[in-house]
């Protein structure tokens, strides 16, 4: 892959482009705007689940009694509090960004309905209730819906995450992980790509720790005690924090230490000590222990993102109790540089972990990669406790033979194969099998046995896309390669390949299982309709990574929501929604089109 791809998931954020999107809709506009066409398209197609619920076409959702004729009310399927209801207008409106002045009455009536519903369920302490809309991209469904939550103090504590990577990637990773642990988050601010800090509410400290055990995008998580734009604001916010929540960590038997972190600026030791002293007003009663304290508290100062323009005062200051660190060291310990067996297109370690998180891989799952190559994606899944298997059409790669991909090395050694890679990290017990097989002609019996399919199909640039085929289609002059037992392979149009992949996933994934794959895209022609579609698979996320000035690849995550029936494999012929991924048939030509243009320009200028 081009150099930019290696930097994904690492410190230099600008290499990755953010494309903010809600779940089902994707837009190439900057994050601040949401394309209204997506909500209209959904409504017309009858695809909007809230429209169906409002129209009583969804038998599994019970509508609660509501006086207002234009609104409906029902319980949230993933409640974040003991009372969690949704108030939805019957008429389809997009998300909260589409609200205008004439909608004031509508919103007021929604709030009134929300209050009535709480009263009816014997909850009258409205100060302890919260109502609101999610800001995109945090809304899961782009049909306006008001969340009604109570009681708020049981909602869970506020925590803060520090992260370094492009935030849209981070958000989708966290969403997948939270759905794995059964939690929901509520965020009260909009951030993408601007700040390395993010404030969100998570139901419990345990879920926060579980999150940190998996995430590769987040650096650390803290329990937020106070924050502000200036030291004074921070101190007053700290004074407002309930003392009974502080005391368990500050009592006289405990040990603690305070750290000062500054982002984008270095402070001298004296400046740091001054800041620690300023916090004396907090009721610290324990002893300071700099080596192995029981509790670590941190002051985090945000001096912006521009290293050439460091302000005198920080933009934001936060104070919190450290809970856990993320898994960013996995990127280094599993680095491809140190791996025994690599290929030309081995996946970057950080990205392979992100893919495993998107796939919600957990212990004792079976994860399959139909384009396994050197097994990089399997390693990440095995690290999280899943049993792994894969197939590849290339005999040499699967067996670990042939020419090496490393510079200075001619042939592969005996320790270079997929099994040896797993052994290198102590994960050999998770190795099930690899086979030499054509992904377009799978040889698995009917049934659902894979919990996740995580793969990086070939784009036709560094590795060719191939499949086996009948003699008539073979162009003359191609020879069979006797040693590798591969029958003559012919070009495999990318659109067919993704169609086969989705069909295969729909057939063999367990219900709720996920398909995670990369889709190469010629950026000037990209539209969201190009993302392959299948009636059994729901699109969860679509993250972009730039490869070059006019190409990028998108990490697509889909979840199986419907049992596969035989007629589903022909659905693309019947549906007019599905526009075939035609442009990608010539992805290879388009990828190199920049090169041919440049060569033509150079020739032209040299002639002048």
């Amino acid at each position, binding site marked *: 892959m081009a150099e930019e791809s290696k930097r994904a998931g690492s410190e230099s954020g600008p290499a990755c482009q953010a494309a903010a999107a809600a779940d089902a809709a994707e837009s190439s506009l900057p994050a601040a705007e949401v394309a209204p066409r997506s909500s209209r398209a959904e409504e017309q197609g009858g695809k909007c689940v809230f429209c169906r619920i409002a129209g009583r076409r969804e038998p599994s959702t019970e509508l609660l009694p509501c006086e207002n004729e234009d609104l409906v009310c029902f319980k949230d399927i993933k409640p974040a509090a003991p009372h969690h209801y949704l108030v939805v207008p019957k008429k389809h409106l997009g998300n909260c960004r589409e609200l205008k002045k004439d909608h004031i009455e509508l919103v007021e009536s929604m709030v009134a309905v929300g209050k009535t519903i709480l009263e009816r369920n014997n909850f009258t302490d409205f100060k302890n209730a919260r109502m609101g809309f999610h800001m995109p991209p945090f809304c899961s469904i782009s049909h306006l819906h008001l969340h009604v939550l109570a009681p708020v103090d049981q909602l869970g504590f506020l925590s803060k995450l520090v992260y370094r990577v492009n935030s849209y990637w981070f958000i989708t990773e966290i969403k997948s992980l939270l759905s794995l642990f059964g939690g929901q988050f509520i965020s009260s601010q909009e951030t993408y790509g601007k700040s390395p800090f993010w404030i969100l509410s998570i139901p419990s400290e345990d879920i926060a720790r579980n999150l940190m055990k998996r995430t590769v995008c987040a650096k650390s998580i803290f329990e937020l005690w106070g924050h502000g734009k200036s030291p004074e604001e921070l101190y007053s916010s700290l004074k407002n924090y309930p003392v009974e929540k502080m005391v368990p960590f500050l009592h006289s038997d405990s040990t603690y230490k305070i750290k000062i972190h500054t982002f984008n600026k270095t402070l001298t030791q004296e400046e740091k000590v001054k800041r620690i002293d300023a916090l004396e007003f907090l009721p610290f009663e324990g002893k300071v222990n700099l080596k192995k304290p029981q509790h670590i508290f941190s002051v985090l100062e945000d001096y912006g993102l521009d290293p050439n323009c460091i302000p005198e005062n920080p933009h934001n200051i936060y104070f919190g109790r450290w809970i856990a660190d993320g898994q960013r060291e996995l990127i280094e310990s599993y680095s491809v540089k140190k791996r025994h067996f690599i290929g030309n297109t081995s996946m970057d370690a950080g990205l392979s972990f992100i893919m495993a998180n998107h796939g919600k891989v957990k*212990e*004792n799952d079976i994860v399959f990669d139909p384009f396994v190559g050197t097994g990089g994606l399997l390693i990440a899944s095995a690290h999280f406790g899943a*049993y792994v*298997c894969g*197939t590849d*059409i290339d*005999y040499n790669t*699967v*067996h670990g033979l042939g020419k090496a991909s490393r510079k200075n090395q001619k042939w592969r050694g*005996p*320790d270079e194969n997929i099994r*040896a890679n797993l052994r290198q990290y102590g994960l050999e*017990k998770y190795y*099930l*099998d*690899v*086979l*030499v*097989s*054509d992904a377009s*002609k*799978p*040889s*698995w*019996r*009917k*049934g659902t*046995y894979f919990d996740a399919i995580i793969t990086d199909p070939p784009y036709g640039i560094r590795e060719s896309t191939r499949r*086996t*085929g*009948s*003699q008539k289609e*073979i162009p003359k002059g191609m020879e069979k390669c006797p040693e590798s*037992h*591969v*029958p*003559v392979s012919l070009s495999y149009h990318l659109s067919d390949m993704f169609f086969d992949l989705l069909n295969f996933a729909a057939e063999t994934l367990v219900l709720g299982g996920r398909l995670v794959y990369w889709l190469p895209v010629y950026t000037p022609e990209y539209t969201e309709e190009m993302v392959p579609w299948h009636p059994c698979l729901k699109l969860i996320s679509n993250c972009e990574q730039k490869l070059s000035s006019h190409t990028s690849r998108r990490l697509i995550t889909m979840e199986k929501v419907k049992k596969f029936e035989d007629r589903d494999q022909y659905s693309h012929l019947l549906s007019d929604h599905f526009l075939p991924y035609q442009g990608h048939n010539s992805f290879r030509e388009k990828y190199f089109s920049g090169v041919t243009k440049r060569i033509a320009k150079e020739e032209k200028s040299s002639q002048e």
Partner: protein
Amino acid sequence: MKLLTHNLLSSHVRGVGPRGFPLRLQATEVRINPVEFNPDFVARMIPKVEWAALLEAAETVRTLPHARVHLPGEWGGGEWSHRQPRARGGTPGDDLGLCPQLHLVEVPKGPIEGYEHDEKFLRQMHHVLLEVDVLEGTLQCPESGRLFPISRGIPNMLLSDEETET
């Protein structure tokens, strides 16, 4: 190739369809490979197993001549792919020449009531499904007779041009 994988494989020769399962296993070299026992994983796999196919495959491995089975500890782990099996003297009383490990471990005939908590059952299944590794052999399509080779523990399921289903 583990017997768990064999249990999931089917032939995709043109026109064969569901009659391509199960593939008939002929093993010429087998290795018993100790794998850490994980009762939760084995319990998860039990409902997915096609028992008749598993019993058939286990039987072909069980009846393999003694010399063609490599037991753990023969050359201290590590790479096996480039070595030949060592000649072995017979153990006294073992004139049947059957694979000793599988002979000792009974392959259960089917899932039993409450198998999730039955450690003995789960250990037997763990051994059969995950610890028996077919290194060399063939898989035969029951309908068309087509042979898929297994070499170095990796089956090759690629079809030639004529056999490809269109």
